[in-house]
């Protein structure tokens, strides 16, 4: 894999070239027309000639919508008599073309790798991984809500990206990190990065990969029951309004439900986003709800990210993008939840 230099003008030309072959998406910073969102709220199709403006910090919406679309058709069927599909479930014809997502930050790139852990055997999710290329920019500044380093990430990481751009004074260092990345830059006559520039990037990255912090290690070693019964959940559950904002904007929340939709005899089985904040999420057919209280649902979301997921898969299921902190209607701050939990591991 190569590391090259690219000027802003060359990058613009490259993006316009991609646009002729692939579906290219950029963050929507204003309200886009309905026609250009392709049901990926917070993103829009790239329009030729428009400058690419990136927000400071993560994009308004996470990249999960490209891997885990809301909704995804799993199967199609027909209820009409004499229809050839009557009584048969057909796999839908999926788009095979590459989609290029531009402007991704390291936190979101890390989220794609994390989500692959539970979805590794899911053919639809993995097919979306196959056809999605992430073109990311390492961060030059961070928002006050950014806490990737506290979650073991780094604003300069490139893991999960296909192409990673890091700004220099007069352009970017472009790291080609995958086969998809190779395809995207194929045929471009770009100058390899100088040894000093590459050394500079490596130096910047050093010390920027802390791994598990002391806080996270404490959580890891703490017994689940202790965290589960922490008194802090009471006040948190009381303030939480149990909307799904945090779960839907979160890059690593991936819960879904499945149902059949039938319109005029033609049906499809869809997988759509669900949220553990909603009472319906855990409701049994009998009517019993094992998470019937607000407190229980709020607690589940945080313990899933900070305890259940790491116990099951290893890493913590939070990349520290801070979106939930900024958008929570009642200012529930996961950093405060984390430190409150750590405090209760320390109390005897």
């Amino acid at each position: 894999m190569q590391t090259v230099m690219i000027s802003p003008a060359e990058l613009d030309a490259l993006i316009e070239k991609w646009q002729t072959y692939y579906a290219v998406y950029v963050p929507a910073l204003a309200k886009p027309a309905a026609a250009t969102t392709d049901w990926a709220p917070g993103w829009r199709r790239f329009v030729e000639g428009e400058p690419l403006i990136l927000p400071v910090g993560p994009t308004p919406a996470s990249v999960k919508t490209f891997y885990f679309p809301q909704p995804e058709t799993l199967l199609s069927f027909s209820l009409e008599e004499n229809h050839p599909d009557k009584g048969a479930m057909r796999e839908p014809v999926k788009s095979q073309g590459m989609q290029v997502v531009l402007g991704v930050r390291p936190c979101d790139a890390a989220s794609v790798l994390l989500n692959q852990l539970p979805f590794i055997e899911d053919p639809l999710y993995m097919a979306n991984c196959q056809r999605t290329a992430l073109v990311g920019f390492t961060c030059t500044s961070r928002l006050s809500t950014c806490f990737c380093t506290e979650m073991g990430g780094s604003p300069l990481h490139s893991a999960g990206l296909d192409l990673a751009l890091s700004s220099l004074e007069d352009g970017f260092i472009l790291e080609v990190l995958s086969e998809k990345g190779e395809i995207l830059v194929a045929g471009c006559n770009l100058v390899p990065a100088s040894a000093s520039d590459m050394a500079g990037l490596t130096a910047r990255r050093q010390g920027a990969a802390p791994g598990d912090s002391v806080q996270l290690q404490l959580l890891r070693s703490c017994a689940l029951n202790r965290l589960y019964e922490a008194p802090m959940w009471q006040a948190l559950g009381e303030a939480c309004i149990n909307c799904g904002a945090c779960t839907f904007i979160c890059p690593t929340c991936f819960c879904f439900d499945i149902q059949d939709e039938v319109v005029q005899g033609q049906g499809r089985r869809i997988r759509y986003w669900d949220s553990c904040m909603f009472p319906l999420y855990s409701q049994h057919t009998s009517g019993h709800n094992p998470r019937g209280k607000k407190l229980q649902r709020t607690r589940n979301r945080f313990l899933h990210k900070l305890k259940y997921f790491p116990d099951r898969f290893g890493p913590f299921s939070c990349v520290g993008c801070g979106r939930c902190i900024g958008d929570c209607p009642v200012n529930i701050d996961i950093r405060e939840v984390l430190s409150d939990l750590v405090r209760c591991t320390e109390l005897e």
Partner: protein
Amino acid sequence: MATINDKITDAIRAQARKLLETGEVAALIGYAAGSLPMTVKPLVVRRPEECDRLVWNTFCVLNLATYLPEVLSSVEIPRDLRDPKPEEPQAKVAILATGCWSRNIVVQIQEKRVARERVVVVGVGSRGMVSRAKVKALFPGQEILTVEEGDHDLVVQGLDFTETINRWSVVRDNCQTCAHPDPVLVDIRIGEPVSERKNPHPYKQVELIEQRSVDERWAWFTAEFATCIRCYACRNVCPLCYCPTCFVDDAKPQWLGKSLDAVDTGLFHILRAHHCAGRCTDCGACESVCPMGINMRMLTKKLNKDVLELFGIEAGMEPEAPLQLTMYPSASPEFIVTDLAPVPVPSRKPFESAGIPSAEGDTSCKP
């Protein structure tokens, strides 16, 4: 120098401590400071020593009435569904309330969600709450690190800038057009009463949309709601939305689909707005909390305008009045049965209909 809101904060803390120490209430619903600039956290205090966490500032955009029924039931002695109601009076809950929040408490009383005698309304006149989105929009591409609040200005500070902006210029649209900033129901008053505001064009934003052609209105609607992610923050933050099972969650029949299909999303917003007709106080919580910045408030505002024009009603203005849209006085305009000649709209002044109509032949029913 202490600002108006600093003084209100001190008064709220003192009052809350007194109420809890004397045992007059078991809990008080207020706000604590948030972790980010321009945010606050809803807080329920139950012990006098917690009262110093309470704050009052210009960013209190949620409607605390949303929490009231739940906090009331949290201070009751637990009992089973078929157990008799205790005879002794139940513990009370105090709640901070501005004009619109107090009107929502009135609606909750009218709808029998809340027993009047168990609520202590700590009234605070609202000077208008600031929209975080409006402030952010003034500084595109820059992060706001602190916002200092004065009585008439906000000092906004970022990494490499400090700017003073006029507070009223970034007050939320619903507060700017609000006519009733002072609580309509007050047990304990904090600070000075705020006078009613005369606004010659309270529905101007709605009228601007109404004046457009059908196609233009449809374009507005589809673009406005295109980014909805159906997180239901607007519904959950609303004190009017308390159905045990919301129509969006009904399975048999399933009223609307679960995906981001524009028809489903549009239907959710239109139906939710209609469920709030005659009850909405334009508190603006729905718009304030939307993570995608959708202005769904325009739908409820439009219905508020219709309800005012058709029935002369503004929600929650009179605690003693029955719930107005559950009455069927014979003079009501019949806009549902359409095969009759249109009934002329009675020219009533607002709130005149609030009392129980006395004319014979009226078939009004109390809720």
